[in-house]
């Protein structure tokens, strides 16, 4: 967790010394999770050395489209958000809750006490950091506190990489979640690269962060370095074309449950749940029991669940949401409207993943804009 007094502390790390940052994390016992090049996309995976990073790669994203592309330079973090986020590490897709054993007429419960991996997340974007803060609100507060989540989160060392570019699906500016992270990290890097130089501006966000980089060969920051870094962020802002108008968005949804646009989007949506999988804030889960053949032992698991399935709202009388229209409406209205009532904040960070990875290219910013266009019935 960040400590405000460190936020003004900045240092310079040269590109050729970047490997030493990875070494320092390994020395502290962290498993480093960062961007790796899989066959068709940049995903999250374990980083052993800097060569695991997608050096010199970028991507082109549009609604329903993702394509890798070579960059003209050798930037380490010159890509946009991939389909994964910290979510699958902090809130694993499947977790055993407990095992219960029935022996000699007695029950013994063994609570799952998972070994908490000490993760260092490298290359976290501002939108994803905000997504983690949203999940913190759900899983770390009050009587519903999830102990394992809280421990994973406390252990997690977060290294943000400030965005220097935007894809055509990014809209964090609209959601107030980026492109620059202002806090909530241990370290934040801004990658500064041109023909003459390649270095990282490091912002220190915590005591832990300050300690980690104390052994690295760092330089003091000069005025021109700050200007360079500011241009990097400005570039990300300038490239961001997608916009979502969030003014009165809760009321927009609450007063448009029967808007004809819901039928329109339902005719395109295939209820595949991909948007919920790639969304860094979607948190729904379900419970599954399994039992051994001898009936002596049973397990209870929690696993991610998706509001696009019929079972999600199942009742003895049938599914509450049996139409795709109602399920799409539930997902989007929850994310952008009722989330605000439930948790005091929007459930959307503007990362654009649901747009890029939607197999039929549904763009939530377009859906919101369409809801704002009054139907004929509304006008009368």
């Amino acid at each position, binding site marked *: 967790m960040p400590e405000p007094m460190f936020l003004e502390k900045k240092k310079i790390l040269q590109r050729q010394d970047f490997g030493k940052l990875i070494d320092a994390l390994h020395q502290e016992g962290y498993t480093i999770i960062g961007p790796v090049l899989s066959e068709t996309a940049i995903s999250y995976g374990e980083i052993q050395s800097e060569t695991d990073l997608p050096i010199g790669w970028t991507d082109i994203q549009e609604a329903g489209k993702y394509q890798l592309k070579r960059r003209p330079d050798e930037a380490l973090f010159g890509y946009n958000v991939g389909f994964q986020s910290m979510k699958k590490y902090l809130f694993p897709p499947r977790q055993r*809750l*407990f095992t*219960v054993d*029935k022996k000699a007429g*007695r*029950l*013994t*419960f*063994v*609570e799952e*006490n998972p070994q908490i991996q000490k993760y260092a997340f490298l290359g976290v974007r501002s939108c994803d950091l905000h997504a983690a803060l949203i999940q913190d609100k*759900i*899983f770390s507060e009050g*009587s*519903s506190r*999830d*102990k394992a989540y809280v421990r994973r989160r406390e252990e997690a060392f977060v290294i943000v990489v400030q965005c220097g570019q935007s894809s055509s699906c990014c809209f964090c500016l609209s959601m107030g979640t980026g492109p620059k992270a202002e806090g909530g990290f241990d370290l934040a890097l801004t990658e500064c690269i041109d023909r003459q130089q390649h270095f990282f501006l490091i912002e220190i966000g915590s005591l832990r962060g300050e300690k980690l980089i104390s052994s690295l060969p760092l330089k003091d920051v000069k005025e021109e370095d700050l200007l360079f870094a500011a241009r990097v962020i400005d570039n990300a802002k300038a490239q961001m074309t997608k916009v979502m108008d969030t003014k009165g968005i809760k009321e927009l949804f*609450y007063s448009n*449950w*029967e808007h004809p646009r819901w039928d329109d989007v339902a005719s395109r949506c295939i209820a595949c749940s991909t948007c919920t999988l790639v969304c860094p804030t979607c*948190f*729904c*889960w*379900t*419970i*599954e*029991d*399994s*039992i051994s053949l001898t*009936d002596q032992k*049973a*397990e*209870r698991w*929690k696993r991610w*669940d998706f*509001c696009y399935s019929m079972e*999600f*709202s*199942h*009742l*003895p*009388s049938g599914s*509450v*949401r*049996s*139409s795709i*229209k*109602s399920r799409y*409406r*539930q997902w989007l*209205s*929850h994310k952008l*409207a*009722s989330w605000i*009532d*439930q948790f005091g904040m929007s459930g959307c960070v503007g990362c654009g993943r649901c747009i890029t990875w939607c197999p039929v290219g549904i763009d939530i910013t377009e859906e919101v804009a369409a809801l704002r266009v009054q139907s004929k019935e509304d006008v009368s």
Partner: protein
Amino acid sequence: MDHLPDFPENPFIPKPFVIEEKKRESPSVFSLYLRPIDQLPFYFLPGQFNMLSAIGGGEAAISIASDPTNPHILIHTLRIVGNVTKALSKLDKNDFVLVRGPYGRGWPIDLVKRKTLILVAGGIGLPPLLPLLYIAQKNKGYFKNLILLYGARTKDDLLFMPLLYKLKAEQIITLHVSVDRPSRDWKGQFGTVTALIPSISFDNKETFVFSCGPEIMMRFMARAFIQKNLPKEHIFFSMERNMKCAIGICGHCQLSPFFICKDGPVFPYEKIEHLLTVEEL
């Protein structure tokens, strides 16, 4: 006490109970009388629910049907409708049932003290109202009047009739029963339970309505009372949705801004009225 959970602060570790008695209430409904293994009293508020499971058989949210003044025996009345209730129905005396709870906001019982309370129950909606009947039985005078309007599909689906007739004979409740489909031997009222409302007289200011049953029944019921000038804010619904966690973090039971499990299941009608008219919300 090695059979007790090691991590009681984990909200998902259930507490084992033993079935002391199993009673059939109708062809598809049965009651489980449960005693906690640890012998500790189980306190709850009328209208709250528990998550119940047979070992390895999945969990379901089931309202508590027992007497709140007797915390040593926990009663649940279930209709066999799915895998979880079917697994529970196969259990017998001395078998274990896993319980976590109680959860949710129950009936606002302080609000109705010394007032006229009308209970409107449809089918399996009666059990969550039973704790209120037990309160009236144990604490005569708690309510000024207690009226029960109870409807079921057929005569065979009516539950707890001996108890209800007994309470009626003891003048603890005024009882109106109606069945949707009367058989030849049915001598009472028939039609929907909401049809009973116009004939009831009450003092608007001093009367409250608690209802549990199919959503459509509750909506028409509310409309009928409002037509008789009962203030909207005097009407309360107990809502049903799919529930997995019971503490508002699994997302299943959402009704727009509400998590039925923790914001309900009992809601002032006023608070949810606008949401109930939206189809498939």
